[in-house]
């Protein structure tokens, strides 16, 4: 499932708090696994909650509070979230390097009010229209869709694929 599929297939919400750092997403002690992605993915977000990596299903959502992804520039943080199966990260706000990295590697990072969403709620999202729905609570939230260049990068599957296709990057 690509991030821009506006499928009505719901995904489960995995709730995280504020200030989830890249150290919590990708603990530094696993750098030796960089060349072993499948195993590294098994440690995704491990220091934030241990039940996420073993149980997440393709199409689920990482749902967080403020300042998600603060800290280091390690791009493997969004990479392993994407590889873990998450369709998007929904957060009240993002740390800027994480945000750029997520788009660049083809993981949708959506700034949206996540208040009231509960762990395990079934969510659907329409990226282009900017609508998030929580089937459990009936919450419906609108968000500012991404600037066109970022939507295009996501649709192409990340910055590398985008450059392969267009040979360049233009606003």
């Amino acid at each position, binding site marked *: 499932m690509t991030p821009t599929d506006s499928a009505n297939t719901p995904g489960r919400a995995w709730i995280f708090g504020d200030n989830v750092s890249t*150290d919590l997403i990708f603990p530094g002690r696993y*750098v030796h696994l*960089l060349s072993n992605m499948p195993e590294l993915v098994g440690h995704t977000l491990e*220091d934030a909650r241990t039940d996420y990596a073993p149980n997440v299903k393709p199409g689920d959502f990482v749902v967080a509070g403020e300042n998600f992804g603060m800290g280091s520039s390690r*791009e493997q943080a969004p990479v392993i979230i994407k590889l873990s199966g998450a369709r998007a990260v929904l957060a009240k706000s*993002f740390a800027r*390097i994480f945000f750029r990295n997520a788009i660049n590697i083809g993981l949708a990072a959506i700034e949206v009010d996540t208040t009231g969403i509960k762990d395990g709620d079934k969510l659907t999202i329409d990226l282009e229209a900017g609508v998030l729905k929580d089937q459990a609570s009936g919450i419906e939230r609108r968000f500012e869709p991404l*600037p066109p260049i970022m939507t295009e990068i996501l649709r192409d599957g990340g910055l590398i694929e985008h*450059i392969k296709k267009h040979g360049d*990057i233009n606003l």
Partner: protein
Amino acid sequence: MPMTLVEKILANKVGHDVRPGQLVMTPVDQVFAHDLSGPLAISQLRSLGFKGFKHPEKVRFFLDHASPSSTVASANEHKTIREFASEWGVELVDVGEGICHQVMMEKYVRSGEIIIGGDSHTCMGGVLGALATGMGSTDVAIAMYLSRTWLRVPDTMRFVINGRTPHGVYSKDVMLHIIGRIGAGGATYRSMEFVGSTIAEWPVPERSTLPNMAVEAGAKCGLCPSDARTLEYLTQQGRAKDYTALSGDLDAPCNFEMKVDASALEPQIALPHNVDLVVGVTDPKVRNVRIHQIYLGTCTNGRIEDFRVAAGVLKGNKIAKGTRLVATPASRQVYLQGMKEGLWTAIVEAGGLVNSPGCGACPGVQTGILGSGENCLSTMNRNFKGRMGNPEAFIYLGSPATCAASALAGVITDPREVVR
């Protein structure tokens, strides 16, 4: 029209006026990656089928994070980077030269430049009046190749810092205090511009802790003016020709301004596990907190000035029983200078140990990983859970003086009585 410093830099580079929030495509003057961010950047470049850089002189790779290598995996990654650098004709700053940000400041950063680094603390380059900002490996790879990148023009937050810091209080304390006030996300996407009489007085190395930690408040960049102090530093570094005067207009509109009275501060401590949980050193929350490891160094406080302060406190004394002290100079230049001044002798005689230049224990892959339940007090910039390699450990942040004083006492200690 009056402009903030970041607006001036960007307007000059893109060739037209800019306003906060605007997306711009900008030329890039220097791009670098290190041994953790470099391998992925290299594999991205290779997967694109590129065969070389248009501007190899703008590109650099540093081996500083897992350095010297402590595992076969990191040794092989170093090898990949060395081979790539020689094949593509770019500079390799090898093991032992020091931390990328420190070396960039010593040798390469010029005011007015736009610098992209594959590391979040790239913002430290702002100390010399450059728009230096961290990005991930893919952005870095593309910036290396295209010599340009897109940026959102950041809002500016102006920090007006006035007054002389009291004895035993340093730029680290000022920055911890600022982050404590605005929070870990308080400057997200923005540019922190540091001005005022305190900044005007501080030499560049003392200033550098502020832009270094700008990312700890979420900022895109942290900037100091390029002024007489900048010229003085560049002259010491044999690079006076790299100097251009550049500062933000103080009447430029910006929607946030904070005044800081540096003369009223006491030494500050950040509590585990958030950089913005900041208290004064006399706060009951930190009084008598037992410290198992002191870590002196990193891009934040691994300079010769920092080790002079720490060694001054340690010289002729003994580190407390049950506390260990690890020191890691930020660069070869610092290492050599410390040798000449006998700083390492003072630290080792006091019972500490000194590592070769690099990131050392900071990223949690080598030389000083903490035991479960242990407390560390460090001159580092971040104390997140799991930083330094063990999520069961606790990291407190403070200045080099506070760290050295606490090493002698074995508990968090106010340095003001022992600093010489």
